[in-house]
C-alpha cells in the first residue's frame, strides 16, 4: 500500500542525499519525493510517497528517518484528511487545428495551456495523482512529446494533523500520537 510521509529536515547541504541514501541502503522504495522550503527558516519539508506492505514496514522507515541527525520530525498522513497535489507539465503535439481539442481536454481537468508553439502546446496540470494520471491517458493519443512531474506534496486539512509513531506496546507495537505542525523547533 502507498504511504505518504512528511519529513521536516534541516536545510543543510547533503540532507537530500542522506535521505535518498537511507532508502537505498535499507532497501525501502521511493515512489516520489518532493522537497522545498517551509514557513520556517532553515527547515525544508519533504513529502515522501513510498510503497510498504504494512504499518510495521512504514514505521521502520519513520524510525530510520529519525536516525538521521538532520531529520527533525516525521509524520504519517496516509490516513489523515489531507490535500495532496502533484504538478505536471506535459508537452503535447498539437497542430493549430488540434489546439481546440487540447484546450477542451485541459478545461475538463482545470489544467492550463501555458505555452503555445506552432506544432505543440505545454499543458500545466495540478491535482491528485489520480487526476493527473487520468489526464495523461486522454492526452496520450495526441502524442506526448515530453513530460515532467514534481511528485506529490501533501498537507493535512484544517485542525487535522499527521500521526507520529513512537515504538511502544500500544496495539500494534507503537504509540500513535497526533501532532500538529512542527513541535519544539
Amino acid at each position, binding site marked *: 500500500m502507498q504511504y505518504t510521509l512528511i519529513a521536516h529536515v534541516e536545510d543543510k547541504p547533503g540532507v537530500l542525499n542522506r535521505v535518498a541514501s537511507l532508502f537505498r541502503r535499507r532497501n525501502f522504495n521511493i515512489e516520489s519525493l518532493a522537497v522545498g522550503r517551509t514557513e520556517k527558516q532553515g527547515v525544508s519539508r519533504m513529502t515522501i510517497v513510498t510503497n510498504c506492505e504494512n504499518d510495521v514496514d512504514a514505521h521502520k522507515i519513520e524510525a530510520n528517518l529519525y536516525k538521521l541527525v538532520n531529520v527533525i520530525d516525521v509524520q504519517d498522513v496516509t490516513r489523515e484528511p489531507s490535500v495532496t497535489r502533484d504538478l505536471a507539465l506535459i508537452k503535447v503535439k498539437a497542430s493549430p487545428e488540434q489546439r481546440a481539442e487540447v484546450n477542451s481536454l485541459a478545461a475538463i481537468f482545470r489544467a492550463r495551456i501555458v505555452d503555445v508553439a506552432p506544432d505543440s502546446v505545454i499543458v500545466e496540470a495540478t491535482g491528485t495523482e489520480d487526476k493527473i494520471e487520468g489526464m495523461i491517458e486522454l492526452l496520450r493519443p495526441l502524442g506526448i512529446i515530453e513530460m515532467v512531474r514534481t511528485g506529490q506534496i501533501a498537507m493535512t486539512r484544517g485542525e487535522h494533523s499527521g500521526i507520529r509513531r513512537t515504538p511502544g*506496546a500500544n496495539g500494534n507495537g507503537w*504509540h500513535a500520537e497526533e501532532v500538529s505542525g512542527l513541535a519544539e523547533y
Partner: protein
Amino acid sequence: MKKTGAEIVWECLTREGVDVVFGYPGGANMPIYDAMLSYPVHHVLVRHEQGAAHMADGYARASGKVGVAMATSGPGATNLVTGIATAMMDSSPIVCITGQVAASLIGGDAFQETDVTGITLPITKHNYLVTRADEIAEVIAEAFYIARSGRPGPVLIDICKSAQIESADFEYPEEVKLPGYQPPSHAPKADLDKAVNLIAKAKRPVILCGQGVLMSGGEEALQHFAVKTQTPVAMTLLGLGAFPASHDLSLGMMGMHGEAHANLAIQNADLLLAFGMRFDDRVTGTLSTYALGAKKIHIDIDPSEIHKNVKVDVPLVGDLKTVVTDLVPMVDEYEHEEWMQQIGEWKAEGNARSIMSWPDDGKLHVSHLVHELWNATEGGAIVTTDVGQHQMWTAQYYFLEKPKRWLTSGGAGTMGFGLPSAIGAWFAHKDEEIWTVVGDGGFQMTAAELSTAVQEGANVKIAIMNNSFLGMVRQWQEFFFEKRYSGVNMTGPDFVKLADAHGVPGRLVTKPEEVEDAIKFARETSGPVVLEFRVEQEEAVYPMVPAGAALDEMLRRPVRTKAEKE
C-alpha cells in the same frame, strides 16, 4: 580570540578531554599536525590508517570515552573505511578527523581528493564536510556529542585544508543544538506495566544480554533484575562481560557458536527479555523458527531496532540502564526452579561434550590454550581478538567477570582488529594486563602495527593461534562444501623471527608442556611479546548452528572420553 582552524581543532579536542589520537599525517592535514605540537596531546603514528580507526575503537571500548583517529585526504581517509564500518556495526564511539583539499578545489579531482563524506555516509552515525574555520568548533562539539550519546557510533569530520589555515573567532559551544537528535531515556510507564505483566506470567524466561547493557552502564541494574526475578542470562558475543560468567544465572554465550544450553533455553523459553541487543542473524538462527513459544520484550535505545528482525510484544525504547532501573522495583520476586533444573540438565549434557574434558593428546587446542591463559591471568586481563575460530574459542573459554574487558569485532567481523584494538586499549588502561588472541590470518592483516606497539612501548601480549589455515572458512568448507578446501591454506612467516625483526621477544610453542612457561614468560616481560602457538590444524568450533538452521539445530561435538580413547 582569533585562532587558525587547525588550532581550533586542538582547542576543541582538548576541551573534549582528548589526550591521545591515533593517526597518520599527509598533505591535506599538515596544518592540523603542525598545530598539534602546541597542545598536550599524544599522537600515535600508526602504520596504516585502518589501524588508527581500530585503535580509536579499542580505546573507546575499553575506556567508555570517545576515541579519535586522524588521516589525510584521499587514500588516507579511504584506509579508515574498514575501521569506521567496524565501529558502526558495533556502535563504538569514535570521531575521525580527515583532511580534505582546499574548499576552492573541491569537486575538481584535485590531488588526493576523494568524496570522503560520500563514501562514509552509510557507515557513520553522522558526518560533516567543513569548508570554513568558523564552523569547526560547533561541528566538533556536535560530533563528540553524537558519537557518545544515544546509540553510540562513529562520526567523521572532513576538514578542508583551507579551513585549517584560515583564522576565525574561537568560542567553544557550551551545548549543542540538534533539533532532530534527541536520544530517548525513560520508556513510557504504560509500556513498563505491560512488561511487568508478561514477566509475572513467565515460567521459562531468559534474558538476552547485549552490548547495550555495557554501553549504558547497566550491568548492576541487570544483575538486580536477574536475581530478583531469578531469570537466567544469555549473552551475545558483544554482551560478554556484562553479567559475571561465574554467576549461577549465567548461561554464557548464545547464538551460532553459543552454549548449547543457552540456545536450547532460548528456543524453549516462554518469555525473552532482550536487553540492548538487536536479534542479529548470528544469534537467532533462522527467524521463522526462532523462539516461537516466547513472548518478547525488547529494550533498545534505537527505535529502528524494534521489530527490525523479530516482531516483539512489548518494545521499551529508552536508555537500557534507565529502563531496567525503572523496572526493578516494579517486578516481584520469582523462582523458576523447574526451568533452572531443565537448563541444568542441558548444561550437564554439554559439559560431557566439552573439549575441556578431552584427554591430553599431545596437541595444542586453542580452547585449552585460552583456558590456560584464563587460569594464568585469573580471568583479569583485557582481551581482544581477531575474527574466526580463535575468536569463538576465546569467547567460549575466557570467562569474563567484569565489563569492558572484551574487545572483539562482532557485527562487521573484521579480521585485523585484534592487535590495533589491543594497542588502543593499552592507551586507555596502561596499568592493566592486555592480551590479544589472534589467528595467523587476521594477524597478518594488520601485523604492521607491531611496529607501532614497539614505538609506543605498548605492553600488549600477542598470542597467535597458528593453524596455517583460515580456520573458520576451512571449517565451513569441511562441513558444507564436502571438504573441498579452496583458498584457505596459508603459509605464514616465522612469527618469532618477525617479532625479532621488530625487536620484540617471541616464543614458539608446539607442545602442551611448553604452554604454561610461555605464558609466564610473556607476562613477566614488559612491552610487547609474541607467542606463536602451532595449534591443531583441522579442528572445528562447536556447537555450531549452520546458516539457515533453527537455533536449536546445532552440530555438536562428538562425545570423546578418556576411556574411549584408550
